[in-house]
């Protein structure tokens, strides 16, 4: 039993007309990065808002935030992908639905929205935990000083909380990159999908997947190093440092 290794495959021309197989992979990497980055922007923005809302004294707002997190956390990402891609355009008014379906790169936009909202629930959970880990005296002190509630969040709670949640946010960012691979099910040719197409055209299964795995690992490493640098820059002087807290289940 012998597998014919051929590492030179990456320099051969691929039938997709993009040039070599390596170019196919690089194009896939580009889509992975674009999807992950765009989704991460949505996730951070929405996640911050929802996370803050879940710690406010207003009851119905808190409920709304909780519901948001539960809905996005308890439905598999793949099912959410299908809902956004197949179901949402049908539920909208016919003209809007048709426009959505005919949009060029609709798979990309769908993936960004879906992944962004999915991740926003996870970011919100981290932000909430960060805010709640602060001593309750800080909030009271802010109010006692005459700050309004938004001011208390802006000047007292959030600057601390965001620094505390940096390490878990790093792993959420890594998750966005990895989860973007799910978008191949709705036809986005990102990194995993291009490795798959390389495999289907050239039959060099293990070379293709090895290359993709190495690229994902390199991405991970870059993000981890970058975030560590950012964490050091933003570290609160005098704190022991956030280190590894309790592990949370998740990907």
């Amino acid at each position, binding site marked *: *039993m012998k*597998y014919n290794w051929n590492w030179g495959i990456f320099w051969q021309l691929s039938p997709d007309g993009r040039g070599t197989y390596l170019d196919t992979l690089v194009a896939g990497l580009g889509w992975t990065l674009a999807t992950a980055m765009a989704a991460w922007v949505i996730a951070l923005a929405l996640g911050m808002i929802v996370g803050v809302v879940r710690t406010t004294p207003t009851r119905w707002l808190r409920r709304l935030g909780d519901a948001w997190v*539960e*809905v996005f*956390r*308890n*439905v*598999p*990402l*793949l*099912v*959410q992908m*299908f*809902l956004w891609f*197949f*179901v949402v355009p*049908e*539920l909208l008014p016919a003209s809007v639905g048709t426009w959505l379906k005919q949009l060029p790169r609709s798979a990309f936009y769908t993936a960004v929205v879906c992944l962004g909202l999915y991740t926003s629930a996870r970011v919100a959970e981290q932000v909430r935990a960060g805010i709640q880990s602060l001593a309750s005296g800080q909030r009271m002190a802010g109010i006692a000083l005459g700050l309004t509630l938004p001011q208390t969040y802006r000047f007292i709670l959030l600057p601390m909380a965001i620094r505390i949640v940096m390490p878990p946010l790093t792993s959420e960012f*890594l998750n966005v990159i*990895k*989860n*973007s*691979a*799910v978008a*191949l*099910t709705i036809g986005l040719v990102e990194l*995993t999908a291009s*490795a*798959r197409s390389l*495999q289907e055209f050239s039959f060099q*299964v*293990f070379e293709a*997947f090895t290359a*993709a*795995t190495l690229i*994902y*690992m390199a*991405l*991970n490493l870059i993000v981890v190093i970058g975030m560590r640098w950012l964490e050091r820059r933003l570290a609160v002087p005098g704190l022991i440092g956030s280190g590894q807290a*309790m*592990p*949370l*289940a*998740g*990907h």
Partner: protein
Amino acid sequence: MLTAFDWDVIRRTAPFLFREGMTFTLTLTALAMTGGIVFGTLLAMMRLASYRTLSTAASAYVNVMRSTPLVLVIFWFYFLVPWMGGWLLGATRPIQVGAFLSSLVTFMMFEAAYYCEIMRAGIQSIPRGQMWAGYALGLSYWQTMGQIVLPQAFRNMLPVLLTQTIILFQDTSLVYVLSITDFLGAASKVAQRDGRLVEMYLFVAVVYFAISFGLSSLVKRLQARLTVPGR
């Protein structure tokens, strides 16, 4: 919109969805959880071992798994398992491996990396003196681990292990990429056959939500019960 909603397709196909699809999903989840926790615990013990080679190998494995998307891992094992099987059995060609076995191996090996990190934290939360006490009593490494450390680590980490299992349950839907008839796969087949994508996918989402939400509420209750007051 909703007036065109065909409830009947759900009623008609629900027995098929649950009998074929959900059975597959739940079996896969249960077996992958068992295998993943066993293998993950072994990995955690390796990571904490004092032999450099063992701990390096284990952390390399865990880090590779944790930085690779599950979809890619599914494809990896789909092609790798036949070769591994052929090599193990000394066959001249890669052997035929069924879809179930292939996805079971995938999820066991993949989730083991995540269970490993949970169990590692659990083992590390036990005071080192307990290991020494075990050795002082003349117990071997395996006896100390098996009878003193691991039961406590397991108990402390039970809520996190279960939460990870709920995630595993949701993740098994990704076997869709191998066209396997799990719960989502079954629904997707019906959806495409009958042209009822809206109904079927909404139904799938509701079912997944109900199960995951119900289980995670149970885990929360368990966690509240296990927490030592005042700590």
